[in-house]
């Protein structure tokens, strides 16, 4: 009980403290000694060995079951996100093509030469792509 009397030389910075027999005896009454004698060590080792051997012999898909609770929701979320992203990309790209293609058709029908219409068509596609990808003009 001596190391509670001062701060210097105690705790982390002090030397190895002595075992407190008095406190230890009381604590032993409360928590008990580690009951090494009550353990059947050979049986325990055997149980562990059996379970490890069973684990070694387990088929490869048994490892998947360890991760299924995490992997299945993640896979669902990833699949759903990919589906939505694909659908949105496809929808916006179709809209762009329709706009630009219809613009070119209108230009040809209104008497503009085909080369000019093609040039406008190409220009409109380039502009649309730049707008979509965020490239400043």
């Amino acid at each position: 009980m001596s190391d509670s009397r001062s701060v210097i030389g105690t705790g982390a910075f002090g030397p190895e403290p002595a075992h407190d027999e008095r406190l230890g005896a009381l604590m032993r009454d409360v928590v008990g000694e580690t009951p090494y004698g009550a353990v059947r060590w050979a049986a325990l080792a055997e149980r562990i060995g059996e379970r490890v051997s069973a684990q070694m012999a387990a088929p490869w898909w048994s490892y998947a079951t360890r991760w299924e609770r995490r992997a299945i929701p993640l896979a669902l979320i990833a699949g759903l996100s990919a589906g939505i992203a694909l659908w949105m990309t496809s929808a916006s790209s179709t809209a762009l093509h329709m706009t630009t293609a219809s613009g070119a058709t209108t230009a040809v029908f209104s008497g503009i030469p085909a080369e000019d219409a093609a040039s406008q068509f190409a220009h409109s596609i380039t502009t649309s792509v730049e707008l979509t990808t965020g490239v400043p003009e």
Partner: protein
Amino acid sequence: MSTAPITPGDSSPVADERAAARERDAALVERVRAGDATAFDALVQAYMRQAFQLAYRVVGHREDAEDLVQEAFLAAYQYLDSYDATRPFGPWLMRIVLNRGSNLRRSRARRETEPETDAVSPAPSALEESERAEAREQLSRAMEMLSERQRMIVTLFDVDGLTSTEIGEMIDLSPGTVRWHLHEARRTLRSALSRFFKGDV
């Protein structure tokens, strides 16, 4: 137990023994990874008692401690691929015991049983039995106030008689950190028991 994973002190033979134990463990782990079950048995034999000691201090019940040791070894086997063989096997295993033990302790209502002791140790104090019972009650309450780590450290030190170095190796803390936790835990416990330890505190 044929091999002692933790030995007291810091002298050169002890350091040699530790280095030898580390090499032995690394070789055993390598063999287990190659599918040799007997190598894992050797690891079990080397660390079973130490794992049980820690498990018992975490869960406070022999059967639970045995179950915990079994679960910890099985988890160690399952996650052996994530174990860094350049580091000692013992503290890695003990960390598994601690983590799983804390979960077990939280999830189960703590069983109130009489402590199972190997032998009745003579009490060095001169307290009368009634006073002693009261002191036990106070101590029990004070121990509940400690963090799990501090409770374990003070128990391993003052009840099981380990050194700060041994505890540090067991739970992967520096001896200085162990001593600090020990100091804090003792201060709390002694403060709770000040009435019974008038002459000492």
